[in-house]
């Protein structure tokens, strides 16, 4: 059963280097032809993986050293582009499932989509991102620990301070990232406000 709170997320890491990794790369558009999210995990980074394979290289998502990874380590502006929730849905369905993402910065819609799925996107500075990625490459068996209470990421001998919005942090710590219930609680107020806004009557 899924945990109801996100306080400390711990698991093996997978480093994915590069800035501006867009959601088309995370899950190419042809896999969006579906009416359910099931099965997306197998296609995460499909074209990037094939592209590197063709060059005789290996994508981290195909590298057996990282096959048990649950913490994704990225760089700047990760998840830019399309609003497709299919992107984080694919990541959380990839093998064991990505449960937290550590990076230098994130695109806004992607970050919000991750919150809705209970996946914290936490920010570290550039030097820390690099050190964490290098450390996981050196020792893929070591756990990466994302601690939302102490606000730090740890792996091996490296500890880096992390940041995320206070609202997201509270949602994870309290286990309240599924927003529908809270939004619905204000139903009467929603109707009153709507009735007061001119264009709702036109």
């Amino acid at each position, binding site marked *: 059963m899924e945990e109801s709170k996100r306080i400390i997320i711990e698991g093996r890491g997978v480093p994915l280097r590069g800035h501006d990794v867009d959601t088309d790369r995370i899950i190419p558009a042809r896999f*969006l*032809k579906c009416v359910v999210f099931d099965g997306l995990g197998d296609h995460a980074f499909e074209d990037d993986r094939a592209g590197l394979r063709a060059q005789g290289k290996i994508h981290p998502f195909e590298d057996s050293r990282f096959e048990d990874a649950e913490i994704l380590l990225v760089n700047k502006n990760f998840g830019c582009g399309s609003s497709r929730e299919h992107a984080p849905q694919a990541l959380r369905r990839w093998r064991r499932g990505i449960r937290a993402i550590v990076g230098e910065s994130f695109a806004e*819609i992607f970050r919000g989509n991750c919150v809705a799925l209970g996946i914290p996107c936490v920010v570290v500075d550039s030097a820390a991102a690099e050190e964490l990625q290098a450390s996981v490459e050196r020792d893929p068996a070591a756990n990466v620990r994302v601690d939302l209470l102490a606000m730090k990421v740890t792996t091996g001998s490296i500890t880096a301070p992390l940041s995320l919005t206070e609202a997201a942090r509270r949602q994870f710590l309290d286990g309240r990232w599924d927003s529908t219930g809270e*939004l619905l609680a204000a139903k009467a107020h929603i109707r009153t406000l*709507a009735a007061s806004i001119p264009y*709702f009557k036109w």
Partner: protein
Amino acid sequence: MGKSLYEKVFERHVVGRLPSGQLQLLMGLHLIHEVTSPQAFSMLSEAGLTVLMPERTFATVDHIIPTTSQLRPYGDSLAEEMIATLERNARTHGLRFFAPEKGEQGIVHIVGPELGLTQPGMTICCGDSHTSTHGAFGAIAFGIGTSQVRDVLATQTLAMDRLKVRRIDITGRLRPGVYAKDVTLHVIGKLGVNGGVGYAYEYAGEAIERMSMDERMTVCNMAIEGGARCGYVNPDETTYRYLEGRPYAPKGQAWKQALSDWDTLRSDASAEYDDVVTFRGEDIEPMVTWGINPGQSVAVGATIPSPMDVAETDRASMEEAYSYMSFEAGKPIAGTRIDVAFIGSCTNGRMTDFDEVARLLRGRKLRVKSHVRALIVPGSQAMKQAMIEKGYDSLFTEAGFEFREAGCSMCLAMNPDKLSGREVCASSSNRNFKGRQGSPAGRTLLMSPVMVAAAAVAGEVVDARRLFELC
């Protein structure tokens, strides 16, 4: 101290503060399409919820629809399942669906404005990042994910953080042959693809004020490519003239009330912004992207930049772009051979885009180069009909373009319109990401519709101003 339009519209829609500290924001208009909504309806059913305000959600089909023939069932059974699911969900929940069979279908960001659904002062959302388009009317409009589509269906509200506001002034006039697309690519090139994260972009200044609504939509459409979740333009006479008389625009007494309300929403002269940047309209050139994100662009007369021109931490990204595109630093972008030309999409698939291309092609006896496959894809069925009435079907066909049915088409290639292999496409769309146009090795050069038309005719990237004698 005055307020910006963003602050005024945002504050008007706040329901209250949520336990997380986020604000609960009422949504005035919710647009849905076949790709990001089916799972939201499933989540709704699983939770035993219904649609709170079905009269405020409108549906269309655009991403997967074929542009050769829209006859049902579609050849692609997955695409057929997606439209059938959307039809069923719309019927079950009593939502208005703009059906292809009725000639009402089109790209979600084209149909909304065309029908007058998009209005100043609204909060607008859709499971599509290019929802920022609607900000051209002075609305707060932004893309959302599928879980949020569920939230809007169930509650007509969203949990939101307030954005900062950056005013972007484009002063003076654009030179002939320079279009809204060039403005938006110029801004992204200068501020970066993540420069707008955390911001709403307010586009202002004489060059923006002089633009038509179609052009303003092009600018706002790509705010998201600069990282800004929404972009907007203050409403003015141009906005009102566009809206008056459209099917969903207020009528009679309500129209008068609307005008006086909208007049109060414009940013105050004394508004304070979190940031202000200014660009001179005269400095903007026709732009072409050379890389794998929309910030990697150059003026058509310029050379592809060198990795040595950027910070060391950004060099790896540039190298990745060169390797994917097979371009070399220091080479001119003009002269790049193209295989495909695409004019369409929610960025540049509007009537004035086609009007301008038609104006330049007419009477010049220019034809698409024989090795180029060129597509004209209208943004909506109604627009296609209007284009036929103007004689554009024969004009474009005789010039060697394929004149297609309405849809998103080759912008993201979820329908059969795709690049193959390593083809290079001159495209009026919004993203040049790796594999974006349907081939994992396909290459996209973003530019204005007029530049795409010029490239189609020349068979390579050229300065449209010379080809069409614009200056």
